[in-house]
């Protein structure tokens, strides 16, 4: 079929490209990126860390939640250049030396996931929540994960999963594991 096609040209204005240095899951990275590159795309496409997902594009669903300097942020609404010099942790960092993080254990033991798509973001939000409040009430848990949407579970078992992890005790969020 004849469709209008051209050779790709590529040119970008100087100040719209930056070199960033950041640590991702403990590994130092130096990358040249477009200033508009969203952190979630940097993680997924430049580093191929595809555990972090995109759900809503407008910071409502939390599927893209990662830890930046230990704080949970929505990586679909953060520019990679804003993370320059920072420590980024994704779901891929939770399991350490073949040992699951208590939050990962909780989610599978309590059936806190179904399709699994919101799960990495939900677990990272949980790690941050427990770092700040190691023994939350159900009300505090529900408020604590209210930046993350799950369409499958109805949240009942996610609450149980978080209570399970809290009972195990979790490492500080900064380590991510």
């Amino acid at each position, binding site marked *: 079929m004849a469709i209008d096609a051209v050779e790709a040209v590529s040119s970008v204005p100087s100040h719209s490209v930056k070199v960033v240095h950041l640590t991702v899951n403990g590994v130092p990275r130096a990358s040249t990126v477009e200033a508009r590159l969203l952190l979630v795309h940097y993680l997924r496409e430049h580093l191929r860390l595809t*555990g972090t997902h995109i759900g809503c594009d407008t910071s409502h*669903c939390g599927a893209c939640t990662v830890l930046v300097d230990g704080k949970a942020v929505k990586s679909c609404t953060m520019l990679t250049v804003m993370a320059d010099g920072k420590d980024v942790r994704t*779901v891929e960092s939770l399991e350490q030396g073949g040992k699951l993080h208590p939050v990962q254990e909780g989610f599978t033991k309590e059936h806190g996931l179904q399709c*699994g798509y919101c799960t990495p973001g939900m*677990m990272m939000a949980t790690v941050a929540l427990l770092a700040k409040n190691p023994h939350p009430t159900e009300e505090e848990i529900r408020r604590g994960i209210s930046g993350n949407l799950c*369409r499958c579970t109805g949240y009942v078992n996610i609450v149980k999963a978080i209570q399970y992890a809290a009972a195990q005790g979790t490492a500080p969020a900064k380590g991510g594991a």
Partner: protein
Amino acid sequence: MGEAIHGGIGQSIQRKEDARFIRGKGNYIDDVNLPGMLFLDIARSPYPHATIKAIHKEKALATPGVLAVITGADLAAAKLAWMPTLMSDTQMVLPTDTVMFQGQEVAAVVATDRYAAADGAAAIEVDYEPLPVVVDPFKALEPGAPVLRPDKGKKDNHIWHWEVGDKAATEKLLKESAVVVKEKLYIPRIHVSSIETCGCVAQVDVMGKLTVWMTTQAPHAIRTVFALVSGLPENQIRIISPDIGGGFGGKVPVYPGYVIAVVAALTTGKPVKWIEDRTENLTSDSFARDYHIEAEIGATKDGKVTALRVKTLADHGYTDAAANPSKFPAGLFHIITGSYPFKSAFVEVDAAYTNKPPGGIAYRCSFRVTEAVFAIERLIDNLAHQMKIDPAEFRLKNFIPPEAFPFQSALGWTYDSGNYAGALQKAKGIIGYDALRQEQAEKRAKGELMGIGISSFTEIVGAGPSKTFDILGIKMFDSAEIRIHPTGKVLARFGTKSQGQAHETTYGQILAEELGIPVENISIEEGDTDTAPYGLGTYASRSTPTAGAAAAIASRKIRDKAQKIAAYLLEVSPDDIEWKDYKFQVKGVPGKSKTMADIAFAAYTNHPPGMEAGLEAVDYYDPPNMTFPFGSYICVVDIDKETGQVKVRRFVAVDDCGNIINPMIVDGQIHGGLTMGFAPAMMEEIQYDPQGNIRQSSFLEYLLPTAVETPHWETAKTTTPSPHHPLGAKGVGESATVGAPAAIANAVVDALQPYGVTNIDIPITSYKVWQAIHAKGGP
């Protein structure tokens, strides 16, 4: 029976698939990454109805990274500008002259990466001539309304009329009824909004074979549709459905983006990825519901239901693309007689075109059952209120009794089994019904608003028997193919496709139980049309009723052969062998036995002379009937009189889905289903303003419940096996979504009895409650 096999039926074992999901190692569509892959983005129409005067590609083609622009004219040259829908209507892939809804695909841009593609799509310039917009389906059917589909030779916007039941008998019975209640109910348009949007990666290899990784719940049916539409030989098409981030029916239809990506791959010779953003997903993907229902039911003076009459107008958008079984344009809406023995009933549905996207059933609902259950359960409550009978008592007085099953419904269904009173009594007990009514009376005396709502629903799932159920002529069986390897390990493949239902776990449990092989030795595969047996896919709660049954039957075929091998090994006649404690034993000689692993080894190394080697079986299961899960839900709400805010205080769900394979997973399905019943009851709706602008185009306005709004669900079960399903199972995925909205709406209407309220359309917003209270003079 001795010790249970590990991971057999009835055990709450942990899910196999979790191992990858909790590590962030799922393989969802946007994780598929091929060398040289290009990215496709789509420019969409801001106008709900307009003539396209011109599409200017120049600026897009000049955008860095952009390789190509595809328009409807390009597709028309290949006869691909239009595609058929499952309801034998036609849908645009890309428009050649007219756009029919806001957000419709207008032109596609192919680029080296997704950023360039987005810039290119934003640079597409289109000259439009706005046309009159039809938003209201009632106005759409008025004389003189703009005709939306002249391309079909239509003179108006009426798509079809469908009716079932005995009109005359129903009218007669209603006339003779001592009491008749009538209500207008609008079941609003909603959107399933799985957290993963739709997308695909299309690739054509050097041999000309097309492989499409795509977010589909029905890969085999999609392959056949692609073959029919594109003319490619079906053996040259491979559909792979990777991990799916939630489906709920939204990933059954074929969306234009898939087809455009395939065209882009064919024309560029490179793999092409297309991934929707959330606004595209909300504004153009399949919707659900949008039924305008007028229903009435009658009762004798002593409160026995008599007849039911329903007239409904369905808003289908600009084309009828509902993913219904072909013979059911209104789906299974005629389950609307519900849990009650109506003597007669009559249902008619008319469908209309409007300037909205197509769809109809994509919201965790087996073909319009939610609309039916909502209508009957709302009216039963209104009838009880009108007759001053407690709604629970009224139901118990009217339910189809257990001894009446199999029960022939007034609209032609044969309910397989049920114990409706049992479920309601259990729910009443758990929630403390009588005490709550007492509390309500005291609160009312103080002017406080508290409500109790019941929904005793009857579901219909497991589509379906080949005599009546097909999609584009393909019968709605489903399949299982089991191979036992020499070492007694199992690989089984299915025609369905899990989207979170944990088929890898539950199918494994069925095989473990039926074959006597521990579940950890069983691998389950789905979703690759090159390897899995043909099946119609996963939606409408059909996997356990169809493929689950196929798993059991195929296992039993294997057992038949295995029994002969066992007899040969044990040197007795097959008649002297029994399958006991997951082993083949010589009757009366427990010591003399062979495990399935022993037999598997023999099947490849030492099988009886004259018998073919190997140990495998396939089953394509054609269900003899639908299954009819049911349950009773009770909801308690408290209402803030001044603000209209409704708080769900408690919600008890008693479900009966027959025999249960994994109780933990079934509870998870019910929790999720309840939340997707709560959401449209309280929060979610897709609306269009009079100009045809969609009012909910992002999650800022389309309100998915968070953990804060979602009630703490309380669940329980009764068990009434299906008599015709080999495992006595019924299916459960959608029961709660179907049953919950009426319980919530009934609770709110019950709370507002002091104000004489008989209906508040869902979603029940604070404003609607405030308005209902103020209409009666305020708090």
